[in-house]
């Protein structure tokens, strides 16, 4: 078993308006294998707060949460080695600037594994391996992480977590601030890691196209509540996404528009542009 949320709520105390509850009464389960999950929701819906719970960076204000058999409550338990949890659940933050600090990319990636008492040689090998995994070649090993472009920094920060070899990988908006090509490359990379290692991957994103294209399970947050957990297609069929400050994928929007304006009856639930194109071409023949 991987991560299980039991009615988890988390509140932040703020100076002006007292307690602000970021997530409310959340219950769901993530298994440690074969999961590829998207976590979506509008800005401020509690996605990041939820993600930070997954490797016990913050504790629930109420409710409990089980991570690989360890029960996390609102209080710090001295018997639990939180570092072990963080080795098992790797969390990549949205902005790479928050974690890069060494002079070279190699050293920076080694920081994670070295914290978990792995020998220097092994850590070096891991750094090289994970750097290649995120699509950067060995020449980057000796470069200064601060002289890289935004996308490269992001990849290095992801490599820094991958090198720890976590069982579950959680990524907070890994595709934000990247161009469309870069997005697809990274998403393919995550899918690839998932397919090869069968590790569970949870990705926070705003991009519904990516959600529809890549994922078979989606969690939707709205104002701190978990309002949907399941297949993305079911989500697009059942929920009014605009009400929840979200959007439909472009394929659905385009096909739906064609249906409405031309009065035809296309199947609008197509995952990729190619599938949608086929559907349109099929309709042309008729």
């Amino acid at each position: 078993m991987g991560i299980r949320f039991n009615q988890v709520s988390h509140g932040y105390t703020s100076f002006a308006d007292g307690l602000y509850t970021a997530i409310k009464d959340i219950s769901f389960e993530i298994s440690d294998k074969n999961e590829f999950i998207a976590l979506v929701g509008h800005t401020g819906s509690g996605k990041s707060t939820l993600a930070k719970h997954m490797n016990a960076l913050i504790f629930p204000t109420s409710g409990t949460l089980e991570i690989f058999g360890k029960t996390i409550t609102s209080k710090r338990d001295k018997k639990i080695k939180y570092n072990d949890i963080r080795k098992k659940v790797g969390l990549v933050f949205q902005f790479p600037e928050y974690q890069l600090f060494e002079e070279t990319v190699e050293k920076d990636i080694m920081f994670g594994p070295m914290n978990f008492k792995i020998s220097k040689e092994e850590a070096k090998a891991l750094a090289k391996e994970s750097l290649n995994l995120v699509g950067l070649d060995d020449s980057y090993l000796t470069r200064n992480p601060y002289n890289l472009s935004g996308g490269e920094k992001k990849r290095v920060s992801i490599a820094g977590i991958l090198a720890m070899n976590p069982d579950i990988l959680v990524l907070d908006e890994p595709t934000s601030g990247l161009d469309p090509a870069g997005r697809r490359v990274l998403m393919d990379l995550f899918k690839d890691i998932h397919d090869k290692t069968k590790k569970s991957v949870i990705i926070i994103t705003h991009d519904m196209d990516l959600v529809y294209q890549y994922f078979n399970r989606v969690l939707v947050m709205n104002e701190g509540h978990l309002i949907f957990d399941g297949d993305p297609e079911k989500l697009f069929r059942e929920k009014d996404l605009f009400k929840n400050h979200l959007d439909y994928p472009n394929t659905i929007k385009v096909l739906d528009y064609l249906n409405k304006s031309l009065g035809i009856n296309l199947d609008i639930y197509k995952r990729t542009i190619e599938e949608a194109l086929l559907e349109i071409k099929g309709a042309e023949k008729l």
Partner: protein
Amino acid sequence: MKSVIIGQYIPGKGLFYKLDPRTKIIAVFLLMVSVFLFERIEQLLIALGVATLLLLVGKINIIRVIKGLKPIMILLIFTFIFQIMLNKQGQKVVEHDMYFTLFTLLFLVIAFILWRVMVKITKFRFTFFFLFVISIYLILRYVDYGQTIIQPFNFTIYEDGITMSIFVVIRLLIIITLSTVLTLTTKPTDLTQGLEKLMHPLKKIGFDSESFALIISISLRYIPTIFDEANKIMMAQASRGADFSEGKLKDKLRQVISLLVPMFIIAFIRSEELANAMESRNFVPGEPRTRIHELTMSYRDTLATLFSFSVLILSIVLKVI
């Protein structure tokens, strides 16, 4: 972090909120000077009463101010104790021997453990610290059986020591209360604007009060931001196994670097962004600027200034007499 009240503005509607920041700064300054001029303990006690009265008049929550005093309490207690111990003038009030025996050591250890345990399970940390200090004294004084480790030493308290220590503590209390009132009721931006206006005449001798005020207000503005950023960095590094609450000291030192470097880099990024944002809104250092909120004086300000002036004059008169 959140319990420290100095420098924290709390929105409210009392009298002090309506005063001009310039008035408040001047008044606090004058009152502080007069507090230092008072020489008799009665005068100081009256001054303390007046300070409390001011809190009541300004409808400021006294409990908040007392809570804010907590971090400074340690300082106050230390000054109190040192004044008592080191001042050797006037009549002797208390005089007796102190013993330090094996049993004393044992009792001290017990008291220490009791203190730590009580602090862990109850909320009144401060009270227990106090009790601990008192118990040290009592143990040193009364536990006199057993093998002495060091020679019995003389413990004396002099009359002047007591008066001086009370004096210093009350003085500090008044000063802290006054400055707390100032910072509680004045927005940091207003405060810097007031300072800027007050120091404006110094421009003639080459002191650029506007830049100075800007530096202060920007640094104040960025304290919570930087604090937030530090928190995020800590979490990002904790995700990579650098947990600051676990691990050995040697590891912790290495982990501190992982915090400091991103901290500096982010501070630089932030300041560059801010500079660009300010310049794109036509900020030119040294050029005259208009403000949305101009400071205005009212009859209240005149009254407050008169009040603080009369206190100062009174203290001078009392000192001369």
